[in-house]
């Protein structure tokens, strides 16, 4: 089935009158409407694309100064080495629809491609097939950080790098600051002495948690930038209900004029416009019944009620601007905005603070920095004792000797009971897909406190994210619970080796109470410790468990 995204009505008109708009707008109108194939849909036979509608760089400027421009494959297009024949200047290469070619078949590491390998960016042809005519333009304000024989790199304030390849006639120098839209070079066919086809190869190089610096998908960012270039304003309407909005939720309605009965997509930009690189922009659906709108709009399900992100409940003044994505154009700001709010953070729970040492930890756990991280004054946070580093990744296990299938979270040095599916869900743990560990490995792991009902993550102005958690008893040199941590009257072997546990690991109705694990806020003889140094040996235990499982599987 073929699906095309087409700009119709006002969008087409805007495209055709674009030359009249003024400086910086498109100068070469085209009688055909802008169409694009969906992201991830590559030319047949050219590999497996990434189906991803994320706009990785909201507010990006189109990287060629003027339109029209045509995003499509050089290799699999007419005149390309894998193409259907013809020449690079064939009109088919200079017509819509656009085709994504991120992840097109290549043989190099590309962790964001489904196959792990692929083409790193997007090929874009300018208005004509002539080399050295059409200017490229800065996709964002930034600094020229490199000029090679056929590359120019521009780095934005946040470290996102925009790559312009195969250009000529550069008018910039290394170290030069560029404004958004400023000229860089001309679209050409430079390729280190051997010409390629005339096109701009455009990359977005960005630090993505979980990988480090990678080539991010460009296609959707290019589409929104192209719509902006042509002044294609979407067809939509809506309003904010200031009276009903509060720290609990932001309330309003929105309708997409191209799909008047469907759920409209609303953008909320915090502390800036939706195209401001410094703003935080979220998208949500306006799909809630609003009977009061039925008559006026012709359909009812256009309400939205959007949570104020936890991270922005920081006692500071914030401003939210609202937009609706209409059909075939840029977002339309809703009436009666912006909504300003100052919300108090939730109170800090008692416990120790455990640092999430890298964004990779956040990504491994699937936590949201915006919605799951609270803010607290630095002094208040510093008042909590420092605990060990937060686990690098979630490992939920059951013992192969435990018929009750008690779930344990492996926390470096300890195993901690996960008492219900609801708790597992709150932490993003795969309750129904735990790893099965050999009893002889799991039994030897000291029991820590049960996992709290929900994670509580918090940061201060320094940006360091910590989890507030229960203190754990210190471990002896041989990795067992320190007997001095025992509350009076407890069996000093309990939990140390699991030998009192049914099935060797799990409790029945009374899971062994770890020494000192007496609940939030209660004192005990526990000593918190930082166990970064022990982390390596801990993760080696995970490896041992994995190997043991493999051995068993091989029997």
């Amino acid at each position, binding site marked *: 089935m073929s699906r095309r995204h087409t700009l119709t009505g006002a969008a087409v008109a805007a495209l055709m009158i674009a030359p009249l708009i003024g400086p910086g707008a498109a100068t070469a109108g085209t009688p055909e409407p802008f169409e694009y194939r969906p992201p991830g849909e590559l030319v047949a036979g050219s590999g497996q694309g990434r189906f991803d509608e*994320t*706009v*990785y*760089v909201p507010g990006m400027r189109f990287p060629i100064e003027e339109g029209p421009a045509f995003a499509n494959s050089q290799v699999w297009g007419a005149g390309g080495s894998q193409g259907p024949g013809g020449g690079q200047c064939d009109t088919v290469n200079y017509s819509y629809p656009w085709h994504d070619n991120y992840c097109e078949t290549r043989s*190099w*590491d590309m*962790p964001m491609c489904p196959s792990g390998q692929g083409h790193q960016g997007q090929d874009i042809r300018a208005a004509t097939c002539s080399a050295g005519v059409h200017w490229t333009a800065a996709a964002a304000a930034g600094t020229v*950080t*490199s*000029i090679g*024989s*056929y590359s120019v790199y521009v*780095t934005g*304030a*946040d*470290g996102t*790098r925009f*790559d312009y*390849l195969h250009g000529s006639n550069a008018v910039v120098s*290394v170290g030069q600051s560029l404004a958004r839209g400023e000229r860089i070079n001309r679209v050409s066919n430079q390729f*280190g*002495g051997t010409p*390629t086809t005339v096109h701009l190869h455009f990359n977005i190089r960005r*630090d*993505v*948690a*979980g*990988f*480090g610096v990678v080539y991010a998908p460009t296609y959707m960012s290019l589409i929104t930038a192209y719509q902006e270039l042509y002044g294609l304003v979407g067809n939509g309407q809506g*309003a904010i209900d200031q009276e009903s909005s509060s720290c609990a939720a*932001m309330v309003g*309605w929105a309708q997409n004029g191209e799909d008047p009965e469907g759920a409209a997509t609303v953008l909320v930009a915090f502390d800036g416009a939706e195209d401001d690189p410094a703003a*935080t*922009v*979220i*998208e*949500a659906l306006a799909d809630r*019944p*609003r*009977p*009061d709108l039925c008559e*006026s709009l012709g359909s009812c399900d256009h309400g*939205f*009620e*959007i*949570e104020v992100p936890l991270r922005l409940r920081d006692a500071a003044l914030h401003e939210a601007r609202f937009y609706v994505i209409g059909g075939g154009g840029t977002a339309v700001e809703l*009436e009666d905005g912006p909504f300003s709010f100052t919300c108090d953070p939730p109170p800090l729970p008692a416990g120790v603070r455990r*640092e999430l040492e*890298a*964004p990779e930890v956040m*990504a491994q756990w699937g936590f*949201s*920095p*915006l*919605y799951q991280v609270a803010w607290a004054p630095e002094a208040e946070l510093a008042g909590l004792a420092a605990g060990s580093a937060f686990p690098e990744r979630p490992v939920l296990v059951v013992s192969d000797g435990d018929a009750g299938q008690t779930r344990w979270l492996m926390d470096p040095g300890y195993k901690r009971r996960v008492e219900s599916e609801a708790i597992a869900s709150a932490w993003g743990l795969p309750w129904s897909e735990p790893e099965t560990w050999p009893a002889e490995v799991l039994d030897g792991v000291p029991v820590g406190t049960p996992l709290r009902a929900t994670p509580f993550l918090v940061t201060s*102005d*320094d*940006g*360091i*994210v910590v989890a507030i958690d229960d203190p754990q008893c210190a471990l002896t040199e041989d990795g067992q619970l320190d007997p001095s941590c025992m509350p009076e009257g407890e069996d000093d072997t309990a939990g140390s080796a699991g030998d009192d546990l049914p099935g060797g690991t799990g409790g029945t109705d009374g899971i062994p109470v770890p020494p000192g694990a007496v609940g939030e806020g209660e004192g005990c003889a526990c000593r918190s410790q930082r166990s970064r140094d022990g982390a390596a040996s801990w993760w080696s235990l995970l490896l041992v468990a994995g190997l043991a499982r493999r051995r068993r599987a091989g029997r």
Partner: protein
Amino acid sequence: MRMVIKRMAVGAPLLVLWGLGCGATPSDEPALQERSAVDDLEVRAPSRGKVRGGERMRRTVQWPAEATRALAAYEAFDARGRAAIDESPVPVLVPGPELALDQREVLRGPEWYSFWGHREHEGVEVTVTLQASRMARVYPGVRPQPGPHTLRGREGLVTRNEGIWSASWIEHGVAYDLGLECAPVDAAPCDDQAEIEALAEGLLYAGGQGEAGEAREKGRVMR
């Protein structure tokens, strides 16, 4: 039409409340509609949006010991480059001075530094780039994958984009990205993947703002 809708949206609930408060029975249809809307709001929690462009999260820099600093690498730069190194928010790694380059520059931004080196010799142009960032983006559903290569003792990625080699890894808590471009494309040292890996291995720590600089920076930050 918008103003009408807005007035209706605000006014209708008020009218209903006014009517109930006075003991009057509001007309059936609007009352039912209002109840239905309120019920819906009660049963559905507010939506959480999906963040466009990823959620920003600053990496925690682990500054190398001062003793590991290669002064010769630092002194290979002019005053402007040294100033950029001194103020860099992340540890500056650079190729050693023994790497023959006609030009070498260090630039810095609020969250990054970059190195650029260039030489042209016997018809071969070589460009070396290196950048490190402390501002990561977290994307929902993107789970970490270990890079299949080993770079500087760490998991890393090696890729080649239009003939330009790139190697990336995480070190000192921040994300590094090394690039190597040649013209002609396959001239040495771009003719072998081992070359960029060797270039990565040979990088030296030239400096940065360090923990003291971070503290100063923090003092300047206003919430």
